[in-house]
């Protein structure tokens, strides 16, 4: 029986601080390391954080209202703009939800293509994360440039396949928009073989570094129960040791055919989160190898589904995908018309921020930056 969590009292000022000595600082919305237009009203006693209030809404464009006045297909390019670092996993989550809503089944080749693209997106996201977390710590962009050099190779693959490096708009209801161009899966295999060199180089650069150990050990750790209760999902949750990965917990696509493992940490501080993302990258490479090997022939989209005035039957559906940042879900309610009646996005970055204040209380301003970096938020998804 978990006792009720410390109900969030609106001003949890730490004991032992007199009011007038506080320094009120607003970190953001225009700040070098808030990963976008995100603002935190921080009250500091000297260097220690006494109170931290996140402020959202700077990038809010009411994506869900736009979806209610656009057709099902028209919303697909908008899902690229949710978490613009991993557009293909957003597309897949939306396509999965519409397929469940309309009962469409997906041919074999498309399922394999989707797994390949989702795991490539996970590599892109975690590689960029390594670069950003080091830049937040002040390593002047060296790790950032190595990470982006490798990320560009994957984005070139996306550009050849979908037409755009990031704004893929590639999944359709029942499969994908077009097939692999010739020579694409050969280049995919060379990328998979070459990627571990980059991972070894980054691990050598990152994990033994005493300064990094000092900066990330025991910073922003929370017990397992309050993380689960706070709705945290994704690498942050697994870093605390909770075995909850949707690819295994609620299998979708054809993940149950591939053998891969879920890395779990122990303490759940920033160091574990970095380490978990490293191990996840290695697992993704394993999945990619198996999926690329088992890629069947056949059509890449379900031919029976027509693109224009697509009207799913009345009903609702909630489908979710294990995105690189956590559980990305789409809840659709259809009233039989061409536009969805209600279109709700379950944003992992937004909900992972619920416990930001609990992690930062009592730590320094420099730790707040690292903790925010380790949560890995993208403002397109937080503000929708």
């Amino acid at each position, binding site marked *: 029986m978990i006792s009720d*969590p410390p109900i969030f009292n609106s001003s949890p000022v730490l004991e032992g601080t007199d009011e007038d000595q506080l320094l009120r600082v607003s970190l953001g919305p225009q700040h070098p390391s808030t990963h976008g237009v995100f603002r935190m009203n921080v009250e500091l006693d000297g260097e220690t954080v006494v109170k931290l209030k996140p402020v959202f*809404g700077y990038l809010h464009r009411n994506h869900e209202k736009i979806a209610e006045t656009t057709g099902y297909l028209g919303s697909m390019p908008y899902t690229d703009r949710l978490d613009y670092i991993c557009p293909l996993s957003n597309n897949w989550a939306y396509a999965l939800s519409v397929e469940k809503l309309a009962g469409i089944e997906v041919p074999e080749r498309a399922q394999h293509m989707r797994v390949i693209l989702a795991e490539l997106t996970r590599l892109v996201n975690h590689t960029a994360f390594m670069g950003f977390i080091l830049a937040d710590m002040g390593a002047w962009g060296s790790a950032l440039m190595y990470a982006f050099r490798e990320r560009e190779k994957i984005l070139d693959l996306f550009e050849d396949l979908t037409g755009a490096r990031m704004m893929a708009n590639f999944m359709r209801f029942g499969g994908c928009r077009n097939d692999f161009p010739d020579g694409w899966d050969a280049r995919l295999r060379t990328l998979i073989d070459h990627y571990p060199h980059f991972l070894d180089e980054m691990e050598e650069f990152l994990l033994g570094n005493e300064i990094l150990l000092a900066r990330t050990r025991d910073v922003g750790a929370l017990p397992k129960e309050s993380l689960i*209760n706070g*709705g945290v999902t994704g690498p942050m949750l697994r870093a605390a040791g909770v075995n909850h990965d949707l690819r295994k917990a609620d299998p979708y696509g054809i993940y149950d055919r591939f053998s891969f493992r879920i890395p779990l940490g122990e303490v759940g501080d920033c160091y574990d989160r970095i380490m978990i993302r490293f191990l996840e990258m290695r697992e993704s490479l394993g999945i990619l190898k198996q999926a690329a090997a088992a890629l069947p022939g056949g059509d890449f989209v379900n031919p029976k589904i027509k693109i224009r005035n697509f009207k799913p039957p009345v009903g*609702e559906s909630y489908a979710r995908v294990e995105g690189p940042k956590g559980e990305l879900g789409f809840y659709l309610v259809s009233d039989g018309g*061409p536009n969805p*009646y209600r279109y*709700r996005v379950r944003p992992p970055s937004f909900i992972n921020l619920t416990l930001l204040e609990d992690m930062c209380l009592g730590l320094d301003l420099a730790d707040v930056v690292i903790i925010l970096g380790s949560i890995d938020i993208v403002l397109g998804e937080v503000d929708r």
Partner: protein
Amino acid sequence: MSADPAVVLESLRAAIVGLRADLRRNPGPAAQHSILVDPDHLLPVMRHLRDHCGFDLLTNLAGIDWPDPKLADAVAVPDDAGDAAVRAAGGFLEVVYHLDSTKTRGAPLVLRARTADRSDQVSIPSVVGVFRSAEFQERELFDLFGIHFTGHPDLRRILMWDAFEDHPMRKDYVAPDDYEYEPTPHGDVLEKARKHDPPKP
């Protein structure tokens, strides 16, 4: 405990005496059936689900605005057996909860709670006391739908700026066109589009 609503409903009825809740069938092929719970019983139901039924992760809160209840009952079909808490003629606001479990595998459990009507009685008890993850999501529903969550520690607008009055996600929301207007033909493209398929009432 498996996420099948029927089984969960039985365990809830056993645990909470005089529970007003019924099973709602999802007509679409997704077949994700849900349990409609009366707002007064929401907190005990949530506490029971978290402590005894193992649903410890509240992943998603979705708000839906139902101006006409018939459409709501078309999407979440009440089976006649249950003592359907049939609404009066007016519309209402609805909150859909998706509860997941980190211990057992499977799809999430779907719960629904409905307000009395769309204008003044729009309050639903806040579940932040039971699931801390609902805190920001409830603030978002308050901001975009106007559903008032009683017992929420810090109910403020989260996405819109504080001076904003209306609730944008309501079906009858009219977007203010007070921003400066750029004279591009795009303007009449919007008019043309509005003629093609006018937004539903």
